C-alpha cells in the first residue's frame, strides 16, 4: 500500500548507456546476485535506477506511515473507553516507529530524513492515497485497522523478501506490528457488531461502505496498466503483482466480513467455483487517479497539517541544535 511509487513514478528515461567495462562487470555481477536471490546491502554496488527507485519507494512508505498517523490520531481524544484510547495511542505510536525505521532504511541509500521531509512538504513526494480519506466516525478507526492495515499486510509481507536487505529487515519488524493492528481493529468492530446498539451497527456498516473501494485501490492499478511493475519484479523489489495481491485480499476479507456481520458494498461480489476465488466488481480507477493527483477529500488538510507541525516545531529543533553546539564547545574547552 503505502508504496504506490512503482505505479505513480514518472518514467526514468531508460537505462543510461554504460560507460566502462568495469561498470559493465559490476552490472553483470549485480544482475547475477539478483537472479540468485541474494540480498543487496547498503555498501554494495547497485545501478542508479535501482537506488532511485528504492529510495522513492521506501521514503514514500515512510511518509505514508507518518501521514497515516493523522486520520486515526484524529480520534485519540474522543476514543470511547480508556482501553480503546490506550490501544489507539499505542497503534499510532507504532506507526510513528514504522516511519522511523523506514526513514533510517532510506537514509542508507544516501538521502537524509530532512531532505525526504522537504520533498513531502513541497508536495513532490507522494504518500499512500488511502490517508486522503476522512475518518468521520469511531467505526472508521476499527475499519482502518481491519481493512487498511489488512491490505498493508498483504502488500508488505512480500516486501520482507525484498532484494534490498535494509528495507527487508525493516519490513519484518513492521509486519509483525501491523498484524496486531489488524486484529485490534477487527476486534473493536466485532465488539460493536456483536454487543452494540443498532446505531453502532449502522455506524460500522457505513464505515465499511466508505473504506472498501479505496482499500481495493491500495494495491495499485491493474497489472496491464502498471508498466513499471515488470522492472520492480526483475529487481526483486516487487515480488507479487497488484492484481494477485488484490485478489488475495478480497478472498481473505469476504469471510471476515461474514463473521463480523457486515456486507461489502459490491453487488458483483460472488464466489467463482471455477477459479476458487471471489469475483468482484469494477474499480473506479478515475477516483484513484484523482486522489493520487491531489484532489481527494483530505489531500490538502493532511499535507497542511504535516507542514504546520514541521514549521511550528522549527524553533524547537533550532534550540536543540544550539544547545548541543554549546555543549560540544564546553566539552572541547574542558
Amino acid at each position, binding site marked *: 500500500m503505502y508504496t504506490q511509487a512503482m505505479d505513480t513514478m514518472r518514467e526514468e528515461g531508460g537505462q543510461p548507456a554504460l560507460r566502462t567495462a568495469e561498470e559493465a562487470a559490476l552490472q553483470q555481477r549485480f544482475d547475477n546476485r539478483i537472479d540468485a536471490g541474494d540480498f543487496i546491502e547498503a555498501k554494495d554496488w547497485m545501478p542508479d535506477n535501482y537506488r532511485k527507485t528504492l529510495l522513492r519507494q521506501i521514503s514514500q512508505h515512510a511518509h505514508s506511515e*507518518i501521514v497515516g*498517523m*493523522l486520520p486515526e*490520531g484524529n480520534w*485519540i*481524544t*474522543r*476514543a*470511547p*473507553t*480508556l*482501553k*480503546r*484510547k*490506550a490501544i489507539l*495511542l*499505542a497503534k*499510532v*505510536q507504532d506507526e*510513528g*516507529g514504522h*516511519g*522511523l525505521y523506514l*526513514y533510517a532504511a532510506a537514509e542508507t541509500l544516501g538521502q537524509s530524513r530532512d531532505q525526504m521531509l522537504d520533498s513531502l512538504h513541497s508536495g513532490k513526494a507522494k504518500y499512500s492515497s488511502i490517508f486522503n480519506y476522512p475518518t468521520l466516525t*469511531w467505526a472508521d478507526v476499527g475499519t482502518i485497522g481491519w481493512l487498511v492495515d489488512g491490505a498493508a499486510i498483504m502488500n508488505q509481507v512480500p516486501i520482507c523478501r525484498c532484494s534490498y536487505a535494509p528495507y527487508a529487515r525493516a519490513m519484518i519488524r513492521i509486519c509483525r506490528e501491523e498484524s496486531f493492528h489488524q486484529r485490534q481493529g477487527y476486534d*473493536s468492530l466485532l*465488539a*460493536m457488531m*456483536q*454487543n*452494540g*446498539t443498532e*446505531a*453502532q451497527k449502522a455506524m460500522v456498516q457505513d464505515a465499511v461502505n466508505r473504506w472498501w473501494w479505496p482499500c481495493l485501490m491500495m494495491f495499485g492499478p491493474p497489472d496491464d496498466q502498471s508498466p513499471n511493475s515488470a522492472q520492480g519484479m526483475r529487481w526483486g523489489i516487487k515480488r507479487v503483482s497488484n492484481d494477485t495481491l488484490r485478489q488475495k485480499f478480497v478472498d481473505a476479507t469476504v469471510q471476515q466480513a461474514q463473521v463480523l456481520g457486515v456486507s461489502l458494498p459490491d453487488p458483483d461480489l460472488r464466489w467463482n467455483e471455477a477459479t476458487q476465488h471471489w469475483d468482484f466488481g469494477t474499480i473506479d480507477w478515475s477516483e484513484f487517479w484523482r486522489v493520487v493527483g491531489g484532489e481527494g477529500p483530505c489531500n490538502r488538510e493532511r499535507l497542511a*497539517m504535516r507542514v*504546520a*507541525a*514541521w514549521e*511550528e*516545531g*522549527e*524553533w*524547537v*529543533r*533550532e*534550540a*536543540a*541544535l*544550539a*544547545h*548541543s553546539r*554549546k555543549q560540544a564547545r564546553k566539552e572541547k574547552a574542558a
Partner: protein
Amino acid sequence: MQASIQIPATPELDYLLRLGDTCLISGQRLGEWCGHGPILEEDIALSNMALDLIGQSRALLTLAGQKSGKGFDEDQLAFLRDEGAYRNPTLAELPRGDFAFTILRNLVLSTWLKLIWERLRDSRDAELAAIAGKALKEARYHQQHAADWAVRLGDGTEESRRRCEAALAQIAPYLPELFEDDTVDAAAEASGLGPAWSSLREPWLAEMGEVLGEAGLALPESTKFRSTGKVGRHSEHMGYLLAEMQYLQRAYPGGAW
C-alpha cells in the same frame, strides 16, 4: 444521551480521584500532540507518555470505583461524571500550548507525581501501593524526558528561552494548588492512605530547582490567585476537554465498545 453518574463524596475517594484525574486529564492533553510534534521522535515520546498516564488513570479509577460502593468501572468514572466531579488540579487541564508549555508542565507534574508515587509505595492500601510501584518507574522516565528538554530549551536560543519563561509565567499561578492541604489530605495522612500534598512541596522545590538551574530558568514569584480544580471548580477549558472526551459515551447510550 447517557446520564451522568453520581459518586459519593468521601475523603478517600476524593484523594484517589484527585490523583487518577490528574493522570487522566494530563494523558488526554498529551494525546493531542500525536502527529503534531516538532520531530517524529517527540510524537512517539509524547504519545508514549500519554499512554502511561492513561494506564495509571485506569488503575486508579478502577480502584476508586471499587471503593465507591456502587460498582462503577473505570469508564463510567472517566466518561460519565459531570465536570464538577472531576478532581484534578486545574494545571492539568490547561490547553497543551506550545512545546515549551507542554514540556514545563510535564516537568512540574511528573516531578510531583514521582514524589507522590514514591510515598504511595508505603500506602496502607495494598492495591494503591502496587499501582504506585509500577507508576513510579514511568514517572521517573517522564521527569527525565521533561528535564532534558527543559535544559535544551532553556539553554538553546533566544526564542526557546523566551518561550520557556512565558510558559513558566503561565504555569506559576496554578502551583499552590498542588501543595496546599485541605480535609482530604488530613484524612489521607491520618488513615495512612497517602501523603498530605503539602509534604511534597520541599522535595519538589529542590528537584525543580536543580533542573531549572541547569536550564538557566527560575520559577516566578507566587501569586495570590488560587486555582480550585481539585475541589471540582475548574477553568473554562475543562468543559471543552470533557465534551470531546465524553462525546461517544454520551451519544450512544448502552453502546458496547
